[in-house]
């Protein structure tokens, strides 16, 4: 289905609207009464000014995490591996549990989060490699490989959680936080870890920006020019694993995926330039972290991880609608402009061609004739007329006839000339019957540029006065042209 058809369906706009509704926490507040207590002004000030030690740690940590995941997520998205992050994040669970078990076996209490995260990184990397291995070495496609690894690793993880929780000295409560995140109870140690790691990840992304970009856009070219593609690829994926593992702490293993996918997906609507997308993605990620944390700190009983994700979704919907490069509104506007221009040009040509056939070339053209010419509806013609009249191309006489202004005359002549040039070209060079060319030319006349026009003039050997003369006669009505074409 083309975009054109989509835009005509109000259902899709309703869908977007529904999505916005569903995605906003406001929805929740409508369902249960007085779920949200609006914050007091003092609370607002306290949170926004980062006066609280705890708020400060959490806000800084999640913002940085958002920035870093926005950065690496851009590459992930461009490599069309967005869902790999989903598989990686689920694959970290067995690692956490194994590290926990190891710590207990060595006599600890299993609460050393650096070791747990190392375990997560190990199985996360393993899962990532397994996905790539399955899609490279078996018949199965990427999506199946993702689903298999994701579910199996997670199953093993849950089985291990079960074992841990049944251990006499085990206390699995700590492990659950990795599934849902524990943003609100983030400690200084976590924040330092996040700061250091995200700084490193961002730095690597910036230093290797050119190489990663090349890998995303043309892997074969990269390997042909001698870049160590497998190494770069692995490095990129390891960065993803690192961000995922760090994110586990903050937002939990299911929602960290959102931070890797949504910001770059939103950023994609703003530009086609990778540098801009990269920066925008980092910004959106950071803003989501900031906004989400602030909101969840202000309101009671809102899980911070989920609010951060919804903040990202909010930016996504915003970008989807208003993005400057690929946003719906911009594309809709561009489409509308094109449609208007095409309609106006069709009107001008219709009037011009009707005028040509009249004995008195300066007499006005009755609206009824114009309406009949292209099987238009009168309403559509009048709408086009009003648009054209606004820029002084056409005027209307009291007896309901069109008159072209001087500018309108000039433009109409040019369009008619383009139309006939293409018709001539089709007849002489594409061997199409003269009575079949009108429709083809009708579509292309609006988009012919100067260069193409001069090329066409050369090909059909048309030498007339471009500026002031009238266009050549229509080739499918001009018998002499057909004869010449037949002879050549």
């Amino acid at each position, binding site marked *: 289905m083309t975009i054109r058809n989509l835009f005509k369906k109000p259902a899709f706009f309703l869908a977007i609207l529904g999505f916005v509704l569903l995605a906003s926490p406001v929805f929740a507040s409508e369902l249960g009464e007085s779920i949200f207590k609006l914050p007091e002004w003092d609370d607002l000030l306290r949170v926004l000014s980062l006066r609280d030690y705890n708020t400060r740690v959490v806000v800084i940590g999640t913002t940085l995490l958002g920035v870093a995941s926005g950065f690496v997520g851009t590459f992930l998205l461009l490599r069309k591996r967005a869902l790999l992050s989903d598989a990686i994040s689920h694959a970290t669970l067995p690692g956490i549990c194994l590290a926990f078990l190891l710590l207990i076996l060595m006599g600890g209490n299993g609460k050393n989060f650096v070791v747990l995260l190392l375990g997560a990184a190990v199985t996360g990397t393993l899962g990532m490699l397994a996905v790539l291995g399955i899609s490279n070495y078996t018949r199965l496609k990427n999506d199946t490989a993702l689903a298999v690894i994701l*579910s199996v690793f997670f199953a*093993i993880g849950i089985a291990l959680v079960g074992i841990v929780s049944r251990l006499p000295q085990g206390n699995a409560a700590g492990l659950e936080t990795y599934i849902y995140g524990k943003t609100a109870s983030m400690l200084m140690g976590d924040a330092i870890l996040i700061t250091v790691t995200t700084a490193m990840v961002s730095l690597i992304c910036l230093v290797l920006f050119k190489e990663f970009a090349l890998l995303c856009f043309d892997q074969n070219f990269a390997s042909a020019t001698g870049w160590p593609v497998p190494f770069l690829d692995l490095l990129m994926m390891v960065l993803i694993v690192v961000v995922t593992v760090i994110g586990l702490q903050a937002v939990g293993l299911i929602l960290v995926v959102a931070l890797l996918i949504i910001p770059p997906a939103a950023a994609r609507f703003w530009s086609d330039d990778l540098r801009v997308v990269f920066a925008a993605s980092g910004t959106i990620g950071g803003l989501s972290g900031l906004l989400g944390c602030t909101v969840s700190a202000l309101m009671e009983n809102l899980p911070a991880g989920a609010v951060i994700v919804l903040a990202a979704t909010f930016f996504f919907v915003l970008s989807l609608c208003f993005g400057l490069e690929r946003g719906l509104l911009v594309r809709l506007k561009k489409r509308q402009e094109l449609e208007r221009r095409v309609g106006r040009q069709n009107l001008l040509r219709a009037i011009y061609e009707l005028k040509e056939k009249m004995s008195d070339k300066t007499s006005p053209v009755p609206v009824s004739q114009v309406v009949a010419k292209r099987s238009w509806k009168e309403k559509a013609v009048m709408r086009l007329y009003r648009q054209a009249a606004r820029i002084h191309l056409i005027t209307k006489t009291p007896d309901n006839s069109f008159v072209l202004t001087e500018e309108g005359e000039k433009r109409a002549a040019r369009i008619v000339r383009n139309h006939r040039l293409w018709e001539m070209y089709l007849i002489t060079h594409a061997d199409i019957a003269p009575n079949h060319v009108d429709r083809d030319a009708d579509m292309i006349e609006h988009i012919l540029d100067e260069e193409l026009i001069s090329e066409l003039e050369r090909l059909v050997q048309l030498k007339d006065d471009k500026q002031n003369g009238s266009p050549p006669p229509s080739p499918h009505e001009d018998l002499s042209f057909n004869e010449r074409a037949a002879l050549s």
Partner: protein
Amino acid sequence: MMWTSYDTWIVVVGALSAMACALLGSFLVLRRMSMMGDAISHTVLPGIAVAYILTQSRESWPMFIGACIVGVLTVFLVESVHKLSDLDEGASMGVIFTSLFAVGLILIRQAADYVDLDPGCVLYGAVEYAPIDTVEMFGRDDIPRAAAVSGAFFLINLTFISVFFKELKLLSFDQNFAVSLGLNTKFLHYSMMTLMAATVVSAFETVGSILVIAMLIVPGACASLLTRRLKPLLILSVIFAIFSAVGGHFLAIYIPVKFDIPDTSSASMMGAMAGLLFLVVALFAPGEGVLSRMAHKTFLSLGILRDDILGFLYRCKELDPEGKLSPSTGQLKSALNENSFSLWIAIQGLKMKGAIATAGEGLTLTEAGAHRAQNLVRSHRLWETYLVEKMGLAPDHVHNTAEQLEHITTRDMRDQLAQITANQSEDPHHSAIPPEEGNG
């Protein structure tokens, strides 16, 4: 630990829901939409939460309907975002399902005050508790409700697939063709997705929202490595589903005991068991598994090495007709540029076949080996002649091609080559083309 009727019911519940999932999941695998299963299984959470909040109760039906609606909405939203933006399907899925999951988490947290709803239960499921909740059916009163529900879904899915078998087959293998035939693919797609959402909801009460993906996708993935035909694929996927349920529960209650831990959750072990089955299939599936392909390749290259040894010995004999010099293993090694291990295996193989024999320090061809070698060399030189005479290649460019072709040239081909090249007695390098010997 003893196996009781309780365990049997757990396995039956697990197996039935796995079978119901596997049937539809196989189509997801074929349609390259596996991750849609993942997306749906995450997004049923908000559906359940909304139903809980609206009805303020733990009735199954509202929850079920809410989850189905959100499941289908997920499919619709993913497709809308995919079409409206230029994002690839994976990314649109990632955006939608994480957002909806976040909504679900918030709603559950909000609902926690007045509804007892544990996200952990939604996430991991508890097949162990299934046999407690029983219904009376078929004159028995100990049939778990979950077994009845899963069994019903298995039958519904089976009916759906049997009725629309032809259409689903077309949809899975060539969607454009299906559309051009006038099939209502949209209807089929959405009815399948609705059914899937319903099945996922029914299953995840017992196995949890993420493990249900293992039941959906893994059996289909295993089966699709073993066959390319749809019917056997579906049957195999159901068999894999049963195996993972039975094996999973078995592992869950027997393995932890070895480490002095009572047991672990059966649902997750069923997922792990499915993964184990997948690993075995991915490694050993005939013609498709990683190891079986590797073995096949090794056998092939060993066969070629054996041929090369015979050819080398034959050429040595040509240069030295009395057979005074029999080349040693070391000489073979440097001449054929092979590692000693595979060379040793190849030589043992040839000795077992009686094609070569040890002669003093070196090796020599037996009569049977000489026949095979002569035909090989004949093939090689015939090909060289053919390539130069008929294909117009330069004489110094044909050796490598002939080296490859000699291994797969049959007697008939040799006869024909000889005929085409007018039974010449010498190849382009002026070596004699030996006559055909024995029966190949």
